[in-house]
């Protein structure tokens, strides 16, 4: 196996490491960077649980190799809340709407919704709903996620 020296910014901190070429970005973030909020649930890019932001865009970390993120700016769910620990608008909306139960699919849901609502990005309810069709949740029947989407689209979660 080929080893590669890579460096990336993860939740604002620089990480440098040697990895095998075949190591997925998800495994790298979990095992080498300790970001265990990245949840591996299907490893086929279907369920969305492992979604993170790479240079601001939502990416399934099971479908990307760590070496492909060399030099990138990565945000995982651990980096979604404000530095003082207060929940982000997406996290707050999901909490208020009871949008999770076991919490295993949750980090990916948070990151996809974050990618579509962060900064000046605005998304309407339909866009967010379509994006959520790429996330599987076995617990909630998606009721709270639907409510959180409505709240986020209406810009109520501040």
């Amino acid at each position, binding site marked *: 196996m080929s080893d590669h020296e890579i460096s990336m910014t993860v939740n604002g901190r620089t990480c440098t490491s040697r990895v*095998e070429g*075949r*190591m997925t970005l998800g495994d790298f973030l*979990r095992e080498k960077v300790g*970001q*265990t*909020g*990245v*949840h*591996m*649930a*299907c*490893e*086929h890019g*279907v*369920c969305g*649980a492992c979604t993170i932001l790479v240079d601001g865009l939502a990416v399934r970390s099971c479908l990307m190799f760590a070496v492909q993120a060399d030099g990138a700016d990565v945000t*995982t*769910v*651990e980096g*979604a*809340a404000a530095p003082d620990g207060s*929940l982000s608008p997406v*996290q707050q909306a*999901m*909490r*208020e709407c*009871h949008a*999770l*139960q*076991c*919490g*295993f*699919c*949750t*980090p990916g849901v*948070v990151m996809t919704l974050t990618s579509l609502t962060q900064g000046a990005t605005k998304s309407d309810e339909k866009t967010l*709903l379509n994006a*959520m*069709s*790429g*996330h*599987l*949740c*076995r*617990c*909630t*029947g*998606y*009721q*709270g*996620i*639907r409510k959180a989407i409505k709240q986020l689209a209406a810009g109520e979660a501040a």
Partner: protein
Amino acid sequence: MNAPISGAGRYIGQRVLRKEDLRLLTGRGQFVDDVSIAGVLHVAYVRSEIARGRIVSMDLEAARALHGVHAVLTAADLGKFNARCSNMHLHHNDGPITRPLTEEFVRYVGDPIAMVLADSRYIAEDAVALVWVDYEEEDPLITVEDAMSGPLVHPDRESNVLLQIGLPPNPEFEKIMASATHVVTGTLRHQRIAQSTMEARGVVSNPTGMDELTVHIGCQSTHIASAAIAQAFELPENKVRVVAKDVGGGFGLKAQPWREEVGAIAASLLLRRPVKWIEDRFEALTTSCPARESDITTTMAFDKDAKLLALACVYNSNNGAYPHMPDAGMPVMMFMPGPYRIPVYQFVGKAWLTNTVGLGGYRAPWAIEALARESLFDKAARQIGIDPIEIRRRNLLTASEVPCLNALGLEIDNITPMECLDNLLTKIDVPAFRAEQAEGRKQGRYLGLGIATYIEPTAANGVFPLLSDHAQITIDHAGKVIANLSTHSQGQGIETTHAQIIAEQLGVNVDDVTIYQDDSTRSGFGPGGAGSRQAVVAGAAIIRAAKILTDKVKAIAAHALNANPNDVTIEDGMVKVAGAEAMSRSLKEIAELAYGDAKRLPPDMEGGLEAQYRYTAERMFTHASAAHACIVEVDRETGFTNILRWISSEDCGVQINPAIVEGQIAGGLAQAIGVVLHEEFTIDARGNPTAVTFKDYHLPAITDVPTFEYTHITTPSFSDGGFRGVGEGGMIIGGPTLLNAIADAMLPFGPLPDALPMSPTKLHNLMQNEPVV
């Protein structure tokens, strides 16, 4: 003591935000794969590629030689550690002897035959690919029909019938069938379901000390896991510590450690090293005990007034090769009569062994009873020519008829299905829908309305370990509350609901209450998440423990303040004496007294503020009731079912947190939608699973699940607190509600096929017929 709490207290009945969410939303939860131990070895299993046959030879040399591989173990290598698995009842129930690794004869595709232990899962999987196995392959038995005529799956057994159950033949039955005005029969074939917890199974086993073991595992009860591990390896139970903080869904799959988890623990004991096995999705979709595969033929006999005279069922279940426990339909038989008046009842059920992965229990393992019964009621209504709502009204037990014993002798009491149905019908204008439906059919739109009613047996009390739950509550020296509960959560939100009960009872802020349920050595024994019981039984245990604790606080305060204990109350963490505002003390001050100043306590009183109670429900079951309705449209172009509306009307007694109640109902309904429309664990003729990723195995997505509407009625149960279970109801009633709606929509095209799911392909095929309007 038995008086129910009102249901609209400071915390009980409030939509309190979940305590769990803060860690789960920020990536700070701790699931089993998040546990990291120095020197841990990672497991990958070598699994059978054929469904049935003898292992002629296995070449492990290349795998063992791979750099980073520590060991490759077979059944012979595990030796005495290739231990026998037991089910959640800590029993073998006369099932096939089930061990982690198969020695000689493989019985399903995926049967574990060896395990690699390596420095990483990557290397372990590389090594698995280097193992060569020669088999003497035989033709596998895939279906129940195969099992009826094929060779024995387990040659040490007398037949492929693993278990047969039934009620003694009732001589009245044939007479009733012969003379009844209407006889209706239907068969329902329930597909095999992959449980699909979003977090698959996993375990980290760490031998600690000479004879101690710490196991982190995805489970539904740390206590059952601990007991099952201790039993398998003949270890003292008090030396097996099981830890499980966050578990990503259970549904029955994680009710007991099974072959792969026990195998990883075995390897850790053999090698005296920490060992980790994390199931991947391929394994989860192919070899993680799936559920349900069964068929049921149901016959109903009615008199001229459409009142049921008799009900008979024949049930067969494909149990696979190594089921969690034999499923011949015992709970199906018990709960089939449901909320109805059924004078004569017959049931025969058989569990069949096949060369497929063993069946496991899945949320409401008996749910086929409601699917079969409620869809047959609709068929009967059509045959007799009355409304499906009316046929239920004529047969539902009414308030004046209970308590009573049903045809099986089970007590039915304190149920409200008729009231739920009445309440449901205030939310939906049935005549208006029928007019819309008739108009739609003229325009080629096929709308359908489905209705179903049921009672859910919750908080079962009778079969070990489904007996009692324990609460141990402490007000610490700083006046904050810690509770160690026998419960376990795989997403149910117990850290919130049970904190609400405690806060309400003790008169403290819910933020000041912390629940622990993640360590088998810290809390009292309990069955955890199983059988919709934790609100009812652990909730009542909390109420009683909190009463003891409250009385103690009052006694200490009264003694210290020279007041009457009956005048002392606790509100918002302040201990108050009626009519003496100045004498108020914080709970912290009373706690400091209780822990630090024995001389100021009442004579002979033990110090500290700690109380515990173990609660057993008085009844065998605490029933919840419900009636649901849904409206669908089936598209003739695509065969796709679009759910337009869904209304839930339920009575789960006093609701602790309506948001969590509705979450339980919704989650169950989504799983039921999956059963009726999408999900199928498919197997080819050679026994190979063919839906092996979430691209092929279709879980319902957000676009498949509508927004549910809820209406609640509240009839307190007999238990302290008045709670009823709500964990499985959505799963039970969702299936027949949706199936009835589809059947109603498809009426112009003829009866639905017998076999679930009602996929677009099946419905599209049926819609090739010309509609008869």
